[in-house]
């Protein structure tokens, strides 16, 4: 028997999952939460085997709630549900030690199986979620984005160096990294590439 706390602000989906999970396998839903704060409180009170938490929630979102729970219960096993993971989310979740990542559109039977996999001490990340994280994230660092932003606005290397309080050589390094990552030949092409991918 695996115990879970279910946190999701979408009542319809949460209730459906709460009804379906016990039917699919050996799962008991200890409590439901409809936002991040409730999720933190319920997890600390009920100490479930697995916390199943939606990424997108009002007030405190999934990542924020997980960060709070980690401080009080570092050993808590967490499965994160997501409708459409924003770029960078999987990376942040992994950093917070989230063990599982499943699409909300998954079959209840699949979610049940993943809950049990995590409870057995393993990790599970849906292939489409991780593949998407590889193709959809922004590979550029904040500084590389800064110099591309200034490039887009038409500033020269010397002007960028002045504005960002960096040495010209450093700016050139950032630009060449950005060009390498975007596979472009000029800094202007790199800025356009970044803009087209909505990174700026």
């Amino acid at each position: 028997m695996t115990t879970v706390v279910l946190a999701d602000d979408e009542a319809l989906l949460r209730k459906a999952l709460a009804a379906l999970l016990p039917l699919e396998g050996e799962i008991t839903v200890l409590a439901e939460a409809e936002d991040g704060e409730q999720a933190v409180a319920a997890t600390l009170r009920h100490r479930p085997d697995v916390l199943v938490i939606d990424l997108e929630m009002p007030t405190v979102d999934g990542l924020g709630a997980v960060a709070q729970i980690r401080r009080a219960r570092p050993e808590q096993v967490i499965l994160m549900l997501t409708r459409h993971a924003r770029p960078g989310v999987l990376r942040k979740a992994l950093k917070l030690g989230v063990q599982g990542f499943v699409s909300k559109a998954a079959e209840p039977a699949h979610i049940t199986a993943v809950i049990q996999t995590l409870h057995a001490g393993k990790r599970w990340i849906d292939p489409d979620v991780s593949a998407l994280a590889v193709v959809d994230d922004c590979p550029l660092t904040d500084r590389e984005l800064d110099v591309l932003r200034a490039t887009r606005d038409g500033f020269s290397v010397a002007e960028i160096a002045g504005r960002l309080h960096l040495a010209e050589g450093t700016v050139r390094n950032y630009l060449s990294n950005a060009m390498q990552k975007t596979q472009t030949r000029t800094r202007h092409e790199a800025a356009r590439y970044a803009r087209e991918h909505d990174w700026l």
Partner: protein
Amino acid sequence: MTETRRRWSGGAVQDRLRRLNLITTVPPLAFVGVLLLALTARSWWHAGIQVVGLVAALVTAERWTAGDYLRIARPSLAVTAVVWLAGALTNDTAAFFGVSVVGSFLVPPLRRHRLAALFGLAALVAVLGLPNVLVHPDHTGPRLLQYVAVPAIAVLISTGFMFATQRLFDLVAELEQSREREAELAVARERVRFASDLHDIQGHTLHVVKLKVALAEKLMDADPGRAQEELREVHTLVGDTIVQTKELAYAQRRLNLSAELENAKNLFEAAGIHVRLEREAEPDARVGELLGQVLRETTTNILRHAEARHVRITLGRTGMAIVNDGAAEPGPLGGLSALRQRLAEDGGELDVSHADGRFLTAVAFPELDGAGR
């Protein structure tokens, strides 16, 4: 969000143009003004009124570069006109400098009657110079030339020159505007295309689902078996639609291999896995997409199955190798075996091997390698 960003970048271009204008107009004007002062002023009175005219001219020029000259232009014109009149009355031939500068800034941006304004300005300068001829009865010919003809013609020339400059700036502004409009248009077109694709995918399904649910409801009592069948079909249909919608949303999301490598590296590091990336050569453009697919699949597998601590990715011109530790006994290949088929169609070979807890995924395009040499 996009709106404000675009406007911000447009503003940055305007700022740079403004600064350029400031550098190219104000210092030369100041230089000419000071030069005139040094060469022509024959008394403190002359120097005084020329300085007043010069200051008014420079203030107007500075405001003009900031695009905010209208408030200051009329008072400046009045001041410089008075300066010129005072200069004309006291034999200061250079005192028309101020009025010619202010006038040449004031006339070109006018929306209508620019030509009339131009000749009106020349006439004003001529009329203000005329008193010199009237109060001094000697040398009427040279005085007419010095105080009426030369200032009027100088105003005509300098203003004419400013017309050309004004056209140039209008052109730059227009270019900037059309660039923004083009970007907006592209976004709008893309939205329409996306909306119609979304409607094609979801609209159809929703209709069918609505009918099937209604049918199932009617059949519930009479024929529960068929009702169940209908509901199962609804379930499958909705599942397919979710997949198609997702593909639609992410169809454009394709990065190049370098960016994907960087992202995979970041993911591994976030999961506490140490990554070493070795680039022996830039991958051939023809295989980048396929190598990317292998990378995605392998990344997923390592994150999911393995208790990996170290991953080494080696990238060559026509191949890639990924080694990770912490691998348990090799399970079913899953996604990789499907990929092997696809790779074979393009002349690629996928090798996976497992030894001492290490797992190696290697992909190579031997034919391409031969052709490249």
